[in-house]
C-alpha cells in the first residue's frame, strides 16, 4: 500500500523490509559456507543503505532550482554515486577476504525488495477485489431469493 506520504517514513519502510528479506542470505552464509560471502553481503547492504539516504538528500535539494539546473545537478550527483559504486566493487574484487558476487547481490537488495513489495500489493489488491465481488454476488442472490 503506497499510502505513505512522507519520504522519511518511506525510507524506513523500505529499509525494514530489505533487512527482513536479507535474513535468508545471511543465514545461508552463517550455516554452510565461508565467512567471505557473509562479509561481502553485509558490505553491499550497508553501502546501498547509505546511498539511498544520499539520494533522498539530493532530491530534496534539487526541488528548489530552475528546471535545467536541476537536470544537470542530478546528473552530476549520479556520476558521483557511480564512482562510489566503482570504488566499492573494485575493493571487493581485489580483497581476498570479500566475495565479489555477494557484494554485487548486496547492492541490489533494495531494488529486489521494492519489486517484491509491489508484487505482493498487487496480489493482495486482486484478492480483495475478488472477495468484494463474491460478497456482492451473494447479496444479490439473497435479495432475489428473498423477493
Amino acid at each position, binding site marked *: 500500500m*503506497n499510502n505513505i506520504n512522507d519520504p522519511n517514513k518511506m525510507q524506513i519502510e523500505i529499509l525494514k523490509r530489505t533487512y527482513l528479506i536479507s535474513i535468508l542470505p545471511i543465514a545461508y552464509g552463517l550455516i554452510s559456507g565461508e565467512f567471505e560471502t557473509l562479509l561481502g553481503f553485509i558490505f553491499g547492504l550497508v553501502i546501498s543503505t547509505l546511498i539511498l539516504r544520499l539520494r533522498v538528500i539530493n532530491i530534496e535539494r534539487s526541488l528548489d532550482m530552475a528546471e535545467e539546473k536541476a537536470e544537470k545537478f542530478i546528473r552530476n550527483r549520479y556520476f558521483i554515486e557511480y564512482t562510489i559504486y566503482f570504488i566499492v566493487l573494485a575493493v571487493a574484487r581485489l580483497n581476498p577476504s570479500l566475495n565479489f558476487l555477494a557484494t554485487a547481490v548486496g547492492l541490489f537488495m533494495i531494488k529486489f525488495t521494492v519489486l517484491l513489495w*509491489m508484487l505482493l*500489493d498487487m496480489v493482495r489488491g486482486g484478492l480483495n477485489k475478488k472477495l468484494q465481488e463474491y460478497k456482492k454476488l451473494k447479496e444479490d442472490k439473497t435479495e432475489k431469493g428473498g423477493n
Partner: protein
Amino acid sequence: MVEFSPEVIDMVIRAAALLGAGFAMIAGIGPGIGQGYAAGKAVESVARDPEARGNIITTMLLGQAVAESTGIYSLVIAIVLIFTI
C-alpha cells in the same frame, strides 16, 4: 598456406568472446533512459491528481519492470560469453 597452432586459435576465440561481452553491455543505456522517462511522467501526473498515488506508482513500477527485461537479456549473454567461451 598459413597454419596456426591450436593455442593461437584458442587465444583468438577467447579474445573475441571477451570483446563481444564488452559490446553487449552497451545495451544498458536503453532501460536507463526509458525508466527515467517513466518516472518523470509519473511525478508530473502525481502533481495533477495527488489522490491517485497508489495506482500511479503501481503502473509505473510495472512498466519499469517490463523494460528491465532487455537489460537482463544482454547481461545473460555477457555472462555466458565470459564464463563458457
